[in-house]
């Protein structure tokens, strides 16, 4: 708000040259603001806020798209607790998010530090490691992943050649989760690029000073790199966590839309899709969607709350 006053100041100073009254400019600003914002406002009302309220209502109803919704109170929510497929999908998704995301970020940070060293060819390496992030969520890659991890596939052959238990990962309920997490970790390029940009912002003087003080590489990493990188780490952690809750296409393709074997790839969004758009339990699916929003909301709030303890912003900006 103080910015308003300072922004208006030059105009008043310029008033002798420009005989336009500040009040007129304010009105012009309001009109222009809402005009320029109108596409977003319309989209927000029609495609986000309206549908969110509608799905909040539907969450308390029984609705199949063809007959009018009937109010059932909390029934959809209580059903979740006794729905084994629901509980399994929540468990599978939690495992994927809370195991996959840290591994992915660790890989991203490690490679980013490698690519931050002063050698030639780093730009090319950076682009090459980014390629999986670009294509990883596509149907094409899901098909390839399935072909590689299937019984007698490439991964199976490699396992056989080293004498490990074989049989392929796609059909084995115990191995589908590692397979899906590998697919997620494979796409470490996007957070890596963000880490790398963050690493380049750390002043070299800090490391030089630490060297003079006799700090080794581990201490430099712990006392300089991690704290200086913490805003970027926070950003990556938040976005990757929220993002991985929404994994859909790859699980859909690899399981042929079933979430199998034994519901081991029946991720939350896949089950939501099945209930909503295959079985037309749109009330139940809406309730599921709202639970997801609440869970993601709570996790986001927790991250912001705890970030005060470990995210260090350099003083000049905030």
């Amino acid at each position: 708000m103080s910015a308003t006053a300072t922004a208006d100041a030059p105009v008043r100073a310029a008033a002798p040259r420009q005989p336009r009254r500040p009040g007129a400019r304010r009105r012009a600003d309001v009109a222009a603001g809402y005009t320029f914002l109108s596409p977003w406002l319309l989209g927000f009302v029609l495609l986000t806020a309206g549908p969110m309220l509608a799905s909040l209502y539907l969450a308390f109803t029984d609705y199949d798209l063809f007959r009018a919704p009937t109010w059932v109170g909390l029934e959809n929510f209580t059903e979740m607790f006794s729905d084994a497929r629901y509980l399994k999908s929540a468990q599978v998704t939690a495992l994927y998010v809370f195991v996959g995301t840290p591994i992915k970020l660790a890989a991203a940070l490690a490679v980013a530090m490698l690519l931050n060293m002063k050698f030639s060819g780093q730009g090319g390496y950076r682009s090459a490691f980014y390629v999986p992030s670009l294509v990883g969520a596509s149907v094409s890659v899901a098909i390839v992943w399935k072909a590689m991890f299937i019984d007698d596939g490439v991964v199976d052959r490699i396992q056989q050649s080293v004498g490990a238990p074989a049989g392929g990962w796609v059909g084995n309920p115990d191995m589908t989760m590692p397979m899906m997490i590998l697919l997620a970790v494979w796409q470490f390029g996007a957070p890596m690029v963000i880490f790398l940009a963050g690493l380049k912002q750390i002043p070299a003087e800090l490391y030089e000073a630490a060297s003079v003080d006799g700090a080794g590489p581990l201490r430099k990493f712990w006392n300089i790199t991690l704290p200086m990188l913490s805003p970027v780490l926070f950003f990556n952690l938040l976005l990757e966590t929220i993002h991985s809750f929404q994994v859909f296409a790859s699980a859909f393709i690899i399981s042929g839309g079933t979430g199998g074997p034994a519901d081991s790839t029946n991720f939350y969004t896949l089950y939501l899709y099945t209930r909503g758009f295959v079985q037309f339990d749109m009330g139940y699916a809406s309730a599921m969607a709202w639970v997801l929003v609440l869970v993601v909301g709570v996790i986001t709030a927790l991250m912001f709350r705890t970030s005060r303890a470990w995210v260090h912003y350099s003083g000049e900006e905030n």
Partner: protein
Amino acid sequence: MSTAQAGLAPRDTTVRRRIPPGRIARTVVFHVVTLAMLAVVLYPAAWMVLSAFKPSNDIIGNIDILPDTWTLANFATAFGGIGGISFWSFFWNSTLLGLLSVIGIVLSATVSAYAFARVKFPGRKVFFAIMIATLLLPTHVVIIPQYIMFNSAGLVNTYVPLLAGKFLAAEAFFVFLMVQFMRNLPRELDEAARIDGAGHFRIFRSIMLPLMRPAIITSSIFAFIWSWNDFLGPLLYLKKPDLYTLPIALRAYVDQTSVSDYGAQMAMAVLALVPVILFFVVFQRYLVEGVATQGLKG
């Protein structure tokens, strides 16, 4: 980086006569380690591309990247299409949707971002906070009511549901990216133009838009690629095969053949990624820089 080099400069001059032997060894080790990691990371991609050139029965379980015998038969099958509909029909549908998405996003996101970044009006801060919140909102909470809405409007099996969000700036990522970019443009430009009597529409069109070029290019590339790879949207709204985009055509093909023709699957999978890879090769700097700045300003 320049400061680091400047700081080291005095020491560098004293050792310039001979390159320290440790430096060469470290360079070699670095490249060997990095290339080895790169080989592992890019193996699935290389395996996919070259498997498309292998005979269909020699794909599963063939660890070698290079085909023993090269064949184009898989591509011939892939171009044959699915259920009487040509591959090029799917390709065109994907292209059309991608281009319209780019147009919609560039139009709506630049305009909305201008309001957020450059105009002062009551409610702006609240709307900006809401926009950031939608950035984190799981899309699944809106897809059911959106489907009900578009279904009752008779818009299933049209491209309208897939494009509405693009023309109405509902994809907050792009608005956010452009706001961040616009905030870094010097304010003196607007102020000078306003003192000269220019209104917001002239400032936007004549000053901001031309300067926004890098952000517009980055957004266009992402908009096209994301539209190209989108699976859930077309899965929900496109039920007629002649409207299919490549990802759902690919899924239909995989589902349809009970005895899998892996060769044709690989060929179609590769063909479906060709535009993405082309975009990447041509615009990689914009893409990677776009991702990088996105995280830093967050």
